[in-house]
């Protein structure tokens, strides 16, 4: 568990639920690292004569300073990145447009998906992978809207990782030329680090969240190619300053395409749909 915020990685069970059949599949078993019985370390034969005590450590040290040094230069996330690259190749080979939807909880990602699915009906097949810690409510909502969907429950996990997408894609089997929407766990921090193999990240921010969110969470907005400002229908009521928000987004990511819309009322929804259709081929 992270000592800063209490968030965790998907180290415990991660499961996948097909809302059409209710079938659950365990895609990651828990217990990679056991909460150890002897975490106090007092079962070990301690040598308490430290010559060079390391900071914050109370462990036996039997090493000498001249052990062989191996240069590694390996990215810590290389495994995730390799699987992501494989996913990306698979998507490109089939002409599947895969989008990684990121936002904080409650920004309206699922409502956005529901309308997107309805508007694209008859134009292009759409598949959805829903990431949440618990419940398959969202997968059921998008399935009701007409898309084939799978739910991934990350348990304690705060983000989706590439291997989960690989498993989900195998089961969903999106047809060539379709769109695959991956709704990440609602979180503006961790998902920015983990490549899933998507064509691009789409960040959703809503008018109720405050104009300075892009400045508060710059990593996520820097990683997104498209930023959608949602809930524009209530912008006036919540005194949302669109210009300020756009200039904050531009400050952290000048290249981002910014579209303001309302997923609930459908206001200004066309540019978003066009953007999706544009990416056809």
């Amino acid at each position, binding site marked *: *568990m*992270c*000592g*800063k*915020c209490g*968030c*965790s*990685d*998907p*180290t415990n069970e991660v499961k996948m639920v097909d809302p059409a059949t209710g079938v659950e599949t365990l895609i990651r078993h828990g217990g*990679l*690292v056991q909460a*150890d019985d002897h*975490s106090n*370390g007092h079962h070990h034969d301690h040598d308490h004569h430290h010559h060079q005590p*390391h900071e*914050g*450590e109370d*462990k*036996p*040290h*039997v*090493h*000498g*300073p*001249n*052990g*062989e*040094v*191996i*240069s*590694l*230069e*390996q*990215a*810590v*996330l*290389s*495994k995730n990145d390799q699987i992501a690259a494989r996913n990306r190749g698979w998507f490109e080979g089939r002409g599947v447009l895969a989008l990684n939807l990121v936002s904080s909880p409650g920004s309206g990602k699922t409502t956005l998906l529901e309308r997107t699915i309805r508007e694209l009906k008859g134009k292009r097949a759409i598949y959805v992978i829903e990431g949440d810690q618990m419940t398959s409510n969202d997968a059921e909502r998008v399935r009701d809207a007409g898309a084939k969907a799978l739910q991934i429950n990350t348990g304690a996990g*705060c*983000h989706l990782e590439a291997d989960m997408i690989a498993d989900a894609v195998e089961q969903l089997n999106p047809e060539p030329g379709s769109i695959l929407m991956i709704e990440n766990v609602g979180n503006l*921090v*961790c998902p*920015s*680090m983990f490549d899933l193999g998507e064509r691009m990240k789409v960040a959703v921010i809503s008018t109720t969240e405050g104009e300075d969110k892009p400045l508060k969470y710059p*990593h996520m907005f820097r990683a997104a190619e498209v930023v959608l400002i949602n809930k524009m229908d209530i912008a006036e009521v919540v005194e949302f300053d669109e210009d300020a928000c756009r200039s904050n987004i531009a400050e952290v990511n000048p290249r981002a395409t910014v579209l303001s819309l309302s997923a609930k009322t459908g206001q200004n929804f066309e540019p978003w749909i066009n953007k999706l259709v544009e990416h056809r081929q």
Partner: protein
Amino acid sequence: MHELGLSRNIVSIVTENAGDKPVARVKLSVGPLACVETTALQFCWDIVTQDSLLTGASLEIEEAEGDTFLIKEFEYREMA
């Protein structure tokens, strides 16, 4: 965030590369845009290295540029 999982990745990568020899020190290279809280990495290091080839190994972190997040090198423990 998620430093526990990241440090677990580090342990598994080093273990794969170390063969079966114990490791005394691991050095990372972390940039300011890597989204990695180095104090949190240090915080869980003892737990994730427990009962592995890295038991008791120290964790060194050097500052790097941009979003660098690498395992720079590791040092074998000198056997007595």
